[in-house]
């Protein structure tokens, strides 16, 4: 709800501890997964594309798979905590919804003309859409990854996602979605640098104008 502007510089908690911890763990896990995944891709590229060694992790295929299937547990365990918290504490429903195509389009247009304001802890419609999409890409990456890891034992998963070769494509598309999100996400942090310390401390100083406060 709108508050009075009297509280200039008031410090509020915008990111709960669980969200901050899982955010940084997932940052580490995603970097490990993507870099080792690129090394694995290089072993048998299905696109005319090879990732340069400095972008990869593991040194060779065996090392990369060892990293990938170790970081996988971190990613999944962390993801379960985050999604569990997001649902149980109603973090998702409060932060990502309501969301409409009209609001996304409106905020997208204002963002392009640099007219979109930033209120700590309140996501604009474009952000909401991006966060929902990266969550879905993450789930797709995990499911397609499991289908590729265990095409016989988890064959129902492979069957949903197609044949073994097409599961590799699905996994690649999911990775591309996640990397695309990370690129936009980092670009926005560079544009609005004060969001970075907030993601560490959880606290933000509110602007002097009346704001919609957000507690998750």
């Amino acid at each position, binding site marked *: 709800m709108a508050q009075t502007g009297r509280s200039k510089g008031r410090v509020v908690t915008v990111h709960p501890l669980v969200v901050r911890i899982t955010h940084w763990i997932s940052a580490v896990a995603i970097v490990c997964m993507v870099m080792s995944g690129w090394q694995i891709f290089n072993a048998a590229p299905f696109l005319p594309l090879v990732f340069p060694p400095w972008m990869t*992790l593991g040194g060779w295929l065996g090392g990369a798979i060892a990293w990938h299937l170790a970081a996988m547990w971190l990613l999944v365990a962390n993801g379960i905590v985050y999604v569990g918290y997001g649902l149980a504490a109603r973090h998702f429903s409060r932060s990502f919804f309501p969301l409409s195509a009209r609001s996304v389009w409106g905020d997208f247009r204002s963002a392009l003309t640099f007219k979109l304001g930033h209120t700590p802890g309140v996501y604009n419609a474009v952000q909401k859409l991006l966060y929902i999409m990266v969550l879905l890409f993450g789930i797709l990456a995990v499911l397609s990854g499991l289908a590729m890891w265990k095409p*016989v034992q988890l064959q129902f998963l492979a069957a949903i996602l197609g044949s073994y070769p097409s599961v590799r494509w699905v996994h690649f598309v999911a990775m591309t979605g996640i990397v695309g999100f990370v690129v936009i996400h980092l670009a926005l942090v560079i544009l609005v640098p004060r969001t970075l310390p907030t993601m560490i401390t959880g606290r933000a100083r509110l602007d002097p104008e009346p704001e919609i406060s957000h507690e998750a």
Partner: protein
Amino acid sequence: MKREPGLLSARDLAPELKRVERRLMLKTGLSLGALTMLTGCNLADGDMTDRALFAMLRFNDRVQALLFSKTRLAATFPASRITNPFKFNAFYDEDDVPDIDGATWKMEVSGLVQDKTPWTLARLRAMPQENQITRHICVEGWSQIGEWSGVPLRLFLQKIGADTRAKYVGFKCADRYYSSIDMESALHPQTILALDFIGKPLPAEFGFPMRLRIPTKLGFKNPKHIAALYVTNDNPGGYWEDQGYNWFSGS
């Protein structure tokens, strides 16, 4: 292939050198990982990351053994789906495929088995044969569908009086390759000692005279040109496994 004893050519050494190089790569690769990922830990000590990764590999072995089902079958395909041409793949070039005489070839059997009589091709052919058209999935990510026939390993192990409570079945090959599988996977109905590929005896490049075909594991767990089979409780490892590929590598 006839070789003069005691003489080594550069070609003989190439796979070994490649292997040493790979092992070094694992180290440097993991050290790079240590640098990028484990800031705050002892950066000079790449071995710690190595140990952590090998511990995770062993953990993944156990998870895969739990996920493995004795009765769940790998998907089979119609003959029209067989990949043509079928790709050769080994740790050496196609020129170096061993040239084995099927008439004199024998497979040695040892370890925790009652009957250690070596096996000839004729004796293997006299055993019940099973046929499968399955997908062969390489650890590199590519895959191809092929047709193999041969003796179910389960029947073979029964025939030689193997102790099926033992943990591992190991294989030594004529091309200096070696590998091993867990007993549960060895007893799986689709695990066969393959003698034929698409209705004909295995071509030299695909493992003549006998290879393991195990569609519940990755391609490198399907050793070719098998010269010896043994049952043991000590994990025999494998050519790639000892360099860092996951040992269980189930699919």
